[in-house]
């Protein structure tokens, strides 16, 4: 079984989604603890890809591709995991591109990079209404909420979301990160966000800091 898990990791490094999905299904159907498939296979592979990215051996598109494969595999693992009463990955992150903004590329990159650090990422998509973000925070109880906007005209929505979380009494339970081309450190401070990052790799560092550990427990 250890060999199969190693093969799963290799499939992620090779960005071979068919192999990765196939092995994942084989492992789960074969009765291996879903916790091990997730931790030793998928999560470990993403961490390693993050290390390779850090070393300059892997480029961002490859991280994004790996994250997409990870997502597909995780969809197989998760039901088994819940059924078995196992732990999902560590800190949860809810991400969204705010209402009125269709630009989700940056958010997708941040999401992919977050996965390489072991975060459990829930992507709500783009043009997400404020109410949906509030609802997600209430239901999923994430450690971090990430709000993205590319336009100067949609950036004010970040403030609206933070205010809505305050009104819902949820603000104290969650750290808020903001990002996007027009976003600066000053803006983040002004609207009362907890963190800001100018790009995806930096976002991971900020998220780790906000989560209170070098690496979230996985």
């Amino acid at each position, binding site marked *: 079984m250890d060999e199969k898990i190693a093969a799963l990791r290799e499939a992620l490094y090779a*960005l071979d989604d068919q192999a990765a999905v196939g092995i994942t299904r084989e492992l789960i159907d074969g009765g291996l603890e879903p916790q091990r498939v997730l931790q030793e296979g998928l999560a470990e592979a993403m961490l390693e890809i993050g290390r*390779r990215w850090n070393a300059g*051996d*892997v*480029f*961002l*598109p*490859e991280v*994004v*591709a790996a*994250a*997409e494969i990870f997502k597909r595999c995780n969809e197989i693992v998760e039901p088994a995991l819940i059924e078995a009463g196992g732990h999902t990955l560590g800190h949860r992150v809810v991400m969204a591109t705010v209402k009125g903004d*269709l630009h989700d*590329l940056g958010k*997708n*990159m941040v999401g992919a990079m977050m996965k390489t650090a072991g975060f459990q990422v829930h992507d709500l998509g783009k043009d997400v209404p404020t109410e949906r973000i509030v609802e997600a925070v209430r239901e999923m109880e994430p450690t971090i909420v990430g709000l993205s906007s590319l336009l100067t005209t949609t950036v004010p929505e970040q403030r609206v979301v933070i205010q809505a979380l305050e009104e819902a009494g949820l603000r104290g339970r969650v750290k808020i990160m903001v990002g996007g081309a027009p976003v600066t*450190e000053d803006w983040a401070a002004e609207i009362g966000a907890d963190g800001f990052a*100018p*790009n995806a790799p*930096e976002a991971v560092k900020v998220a780790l800091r906000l989560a209170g550990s070098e690496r979230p427990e996985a």
Partner: protein
Amino acid sequence: MGAEPAPRIRPVPLRMRLEPLSENAVERIHRAALEVLRRTGMHVRSERLVRALGEAGADVDADQLRVRFAPELVEEAIARAPSSYLLAGRDPACDITLDGTHSYLTLDGCASELVDLTTGERRPSTKADLEAATRMADAVPEVTIIWQPVAARDAPTRVQPLHETHAQLTNTSKHIQQMTAIDPDNARGVVEMARIVAGGEPELRERPIVSAFQCTLSPLTIDGDPLEAALVYAEAGIPCGWVSMPLSTATAPTTPAGSVVLTNAELLGAIAAVQLLAPGAPTFYGVCTSTMDLNSGSIACGWGPEENLFSLACGQLARRYHIPSELGVFGTGAKTQDWQAGAQHMLSGFTSYLAGGDMLCATGTIYAGRVFAFEQVLLDSELVDIIHALEDGMSVSDEDLAVDVIDDVGPGGHFLAHEHTLRNMRRNWLPRYFDRATWEEWEAAGRPSPRDRARERARRILDEHHPDPLPGDVEAELLRVIAAHEG
């Protein structure tokens, strides 16, 4: 995912070309230069050589040491110069064939000062500096030919060129172009040293691991010693080019075409002189024509529009004569690696490449060639890397047009993780020194400039790179040659 090992040298294939002169304009410049050589001629400062040139058919005035060439004699003489030949490396992987298909970048020479890598201050250069600069260039694939970037000013003056040759033979296995031995005795010393390393007289002739060049003195003067040195090299089978370096407005006419006529006349005259005395000697057509600053009277310090035009025009002329060219490049008046250095170097780099220069001279100096800077070599290598990428052009295969991929992704999607991206993205150009950091990263890192990154890399190369050593007691033999010439 891994990168291939870097090649020892990276010549740039010559596939693009820019020719601003019409065929008629080239012929007018050619005929004007022939007229200068016929009517005005050249001052050759050697009675012996003036006599010899007279015997070879030139019209000489022995009292005035003036040599005039009939147009037919020039045409006949320059036709003897080979259009293609080998510049060998001590390491055969560094071999160069000048045949018009590739452009080769040379390391600059010969600055008398350098920017100290530790202090960042300018100071006089030493033999140890020359060794370090040579060693670094040995590790930079874009540098394909090694000039003497700085002078060994702490070596005994009389044999300084031999100390410089020693410093280089021991620190690079790339082809060395000796530019500081400009008298016959030092040239003989260089030949002796090169023979020792090559393994003998016929071995050096077969694989010249050293070439050389001499300069004319503008306007229209050839000193005796450099011409004698050129003949020493010719006899040993060592290619020896000629470089003309007139200063437009001061030592050449102020008009661009007039400067090119003078440059061309000097080069045709010098090359004809050697071909008359040593027929078939491999040589090249070297151009470092520049302009005078109208306010100060000093050299205009690097590449403005005129220098770029000189390069393009002279590239066309060299091709007309079927003689390999060495065109100026990377000249700047800047005192550091700033906007001016970057702009002048990128423009001149691309222009001289488009001019079709077989050799491009040279990388590594600032302040009009007077000061060497390690960082400059590395930053210039990035510009050469860009020229490589431009030269690669744009492929339009079905894979490159990517219509299926565009359809697959569709409106509103992204191409980031598409297998087409993963398959092809490593063909994209990536900078080594250009700044692509965010403002925050830049501030956190202490606001580094490309120059800072290059300095760091230069230090690392000097710490880590070990050139191919000379075998056995070869170095001791080289030192014996120097001692013999010094005595």
